């Protein structure tokens, strides 16, 4: 189903908008501490920008920006960052996800360590959500057809 859009307007506008959308997504992730938003919303927006690319430029062009493999790597990587941060706390003799314990290795106060921990997991969430949203959209819109030109 997905093929590159013929409509020049959509192509051009999305081409120009995508970087800004993505930056906005990162902004949302990074500023989750101060304003609404966070990893999840940012991730969804990132995913949406990729979906936009996919719709307008088709799978092959989109893969130049994010390949099928890196989607899957990102989806695993994100949750791994999250659970990994939790696990590091465990190694630092804290409970699981007890970021306060990170203050020891980050040389900041526990509250700030928690803040940084939050940022860390937001990033993880963002990765996963982005990759998964993209991949779900890809699967649903392609409906089971194998991607045309994916290299295994």
């Amino acid at each position, binding site marked *: 189903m997905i093929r590159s859009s013929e409509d020049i307007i959509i192509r051009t506008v999305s081409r120009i908008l995508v970087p800004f959308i993505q930056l906005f997504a990162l902004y949302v992730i990074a500023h989750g501490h*101060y*304003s*609404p938003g966070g990893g*999840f919303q940012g991730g969804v927006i990132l995913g949406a920008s990729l979906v936009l690319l996919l719709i307008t430029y088709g799978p092959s062009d989109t893969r130049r920006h994010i390949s099928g493999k890196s989607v899957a790597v990102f989806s695993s990587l994100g949750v791994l960052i999250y659970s990994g941060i939790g696990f590091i706390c465990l190694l630092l003799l804290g409970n699981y996800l007890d970021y306060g314990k990170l203050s020891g290795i980050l040389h900041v106060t526990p509250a700030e360590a928690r803040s940084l921990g939050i940022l860390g997991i937001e990033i993880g969430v963002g990765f996963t959500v982005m990759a998964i949203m993209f991949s*779900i959209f890809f*699967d*649903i819109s392609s*409906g*089971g057809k194998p991607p045309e030109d994916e290299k295994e």
Partner: protein
Amino acid sequence: MVDFIVGKYNYWIYIVLMMIGFYAMIGKKNLIKKIIGMNIFQTAIILFYVSIGCKKGATLPILGHAHGHAGQAIQTSAYINPLPHVLMLTAIVVMVATLGVALAIGIMIYLKYNTLEEDEILKAVK
């Protein structure tokens, strides 16, 4: 009585929405319609939760000018209860995840039976 009805109109609306969604889930035959109903149903629950968190006269659950306020004591009643919001973030995520899986299954069904009507599919399965 009037107070009872007016004072909780949020809850009434949420019940109405939920019933609409619920009916679509169990009463409609079209799979996409069912999914739409599911969406409405879950959104209604989220509305309910958000209504729980509301506080009259309170502001967003973000400490305004955090650095400036450092010295002052924070009034609990000044901020909306953040916990239901957190829960609902999770619920929304769950919602979209369910939506994705449901759609994927719906597409599988369509690819196999070329229809989205439940009765026709059941006929085809047999």
